[in-house]
């Protein structure tokens, strides 16, 4: 009975999800269409697109050099020349935020590139093989999961040394376990399906079954999960920057900007408010985009 009902839901999901896979381009269009039909995910998508454009076009969009120190103009409130005001060294905050998108985006991209495949591989392998392999891998995952993300990243950065690269490594090390968990759970629902048995009967090796049959089935939910975790990644990166363990001073990292602006916060609110708003909007956007993607790719959640 359970197996039957399992197949039932699966058929439903495959009927709805498959357009994305029947033709990558046609399918991408369908996903975008579905995303833009929902106002909140549309907002998320728009902000992410703006973020990417900002990062690419930073030198042209920025009005000033982000690292140009101009002491006579320090701590100026927002006006026509400095849209978001200037900081304690007279640097233009707007330009720094625009250039900061590059740092934020590179952190997100690198973390996702590392975390996605690692989580997917660990989860699907553990789920497919089961037994002691599953036990060992999942206990390791549990150990990683039992620490608060920021604290574990702090420990890693403290051990590896402060800096942007180490922050990226530390964040990646702390954000793969939830993805591995998810991939394992998904794998468990597919591993006894007939198409896996069929593929085993055709002589496919375990590696072939995992990469060709199981991973494509887990991909949509993993993609959604990565998008949702990007918000956390941004917050962790900003948190590490704020604590002085992430990007180092002249770099216009948003968290670090808040950390230095904190001392002038009471008189010059713009030092903290604008980078803070940038972090807020971008992480909100990733959350909304993730929710929208879940609706578009993973109909089981509806």
């Amino acid at each position: 009975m359970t197996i039957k009902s399992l197949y039932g839901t699966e058929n439903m999901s495959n009927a709805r999800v498959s357009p994305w896979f029947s033709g990558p381009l046609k399918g991408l269009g369908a996903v975008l269409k579905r995303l833009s039909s929902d106002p909140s995910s549309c907002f998320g998508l728009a902000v992410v697109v703006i973020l990417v454009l900002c990062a690419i076009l930073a030198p042209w969009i920025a009005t000033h050099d982000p690292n140009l120190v101009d002491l006579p103009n320090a701590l100026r409130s927002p006006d026509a020349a400095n849209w978001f005001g200037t900081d304690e060294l007279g640097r233009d905050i707007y330009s720094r935020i625009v250039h900061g998108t590059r740092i934020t985006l590179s952190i997100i991209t690198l973390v996702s590139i590392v975390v996605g495949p690692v989580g997917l591989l660990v989860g699907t392998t553990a789920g497919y093989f089961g037994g002691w392999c599953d036990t060992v891998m999942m206990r390791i995952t549990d150990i990683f999961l039992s620490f608060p993300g920021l604290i574990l990243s702090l420990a890693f950065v403290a051990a590896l040394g402060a800096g942007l690269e180490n922050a990226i490594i530390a964040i990646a090390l702390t954000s793969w376990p939830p993805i591995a968990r998810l991939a394992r759970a998904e794998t468990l629902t597919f591993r006894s399906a007939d198409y896996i048995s069929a593929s085993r009967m055709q002589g496919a090796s375990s590696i072939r079954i995992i990469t060709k049959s199981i991973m494509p089935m887990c991909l949509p939910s993993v993609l959604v999960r990565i998008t949702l975790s990007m918000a956390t990644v941004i917050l962790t990166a900003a948190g590490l920057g704020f604590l002085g363990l992430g990007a180092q001073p002249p770099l216009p990292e948003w968290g670090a900007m808040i950390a230095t602006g904190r001392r002038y916060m009471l008189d010059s609110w713009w030092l903290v408010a604008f980078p803070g708003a940038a972090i807020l909007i971008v992480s909100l956007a990733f959350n909304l985009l993730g929710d929208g993607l879940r609706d578009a790719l993973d109909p089981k959640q509806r």
Partner: protein
Amino acid sequence: MSDVTIKGLTISLGMGAAQKKILNEVGFSVASGESFGLVGESGSGKSTILRCFARLLTFWSGEISIAGRPVDQIPAAEYCRLVQMVFQDPYGSLHPRQSIKTALQEPLRIHRLDRQQERMEKALIDVGLNGSFLSRYPHELSGGQRQRVAIARALILEPSVLLLDEPTSALDVSVQAEVLNLLNEIRRTRKLTYLFVSHDLAVIDYMCERLAVMQSGSIVEIMNRTELCKGGAKHPYARQLIDSSIEYDRVA
């Protein structure tokens, strides 16, 4: 030659006190080119025999051999080309994200066979479809078409034994007849040995020369088609099963 012998096949699931024997000393033999049916109610172990045979379950004891060779001594790559299986649910046996082309090409790639395009097209034509189905996805096909693709996939490695696990029970009656006729024709042209599991005696009668009636993990009677039609079953359970099936037909 692909005659099949099963002797003393026993398998238990669970551990310790909760252990339950699913199959108990099952034994029968099937001649090369013969079609052998397995009937019985749900949970009587029919499909488990096929799964043991297919080496999807490995912890059985007893002996299964093809042409005198024990199956657990045949290398995996060779075994795939000897025995293939068609599953019950055509909705669950094709990968929902793989096109028909991928589904058919996988076994060819794994076994590094030549003339792949030609083989794929021929496999589809043999099951009454055509090459234009290659670019389709399972959700674009009907249940009967999916089952045909599943049969094509099983046949593409040119096995000599085909395990059929209720291949038509998920299909409606008219499609059922088409698929059964197709299977009969394939058996005739390719001289395949069939092991056919079904709970439908009419299907077994149409498909198989001999059949075994199963009850809670054991075979209670093995008979041939004429005995079945004449009502020559000796074992009370087999008689009851056949009578209830005839009764059902009359009511329907």
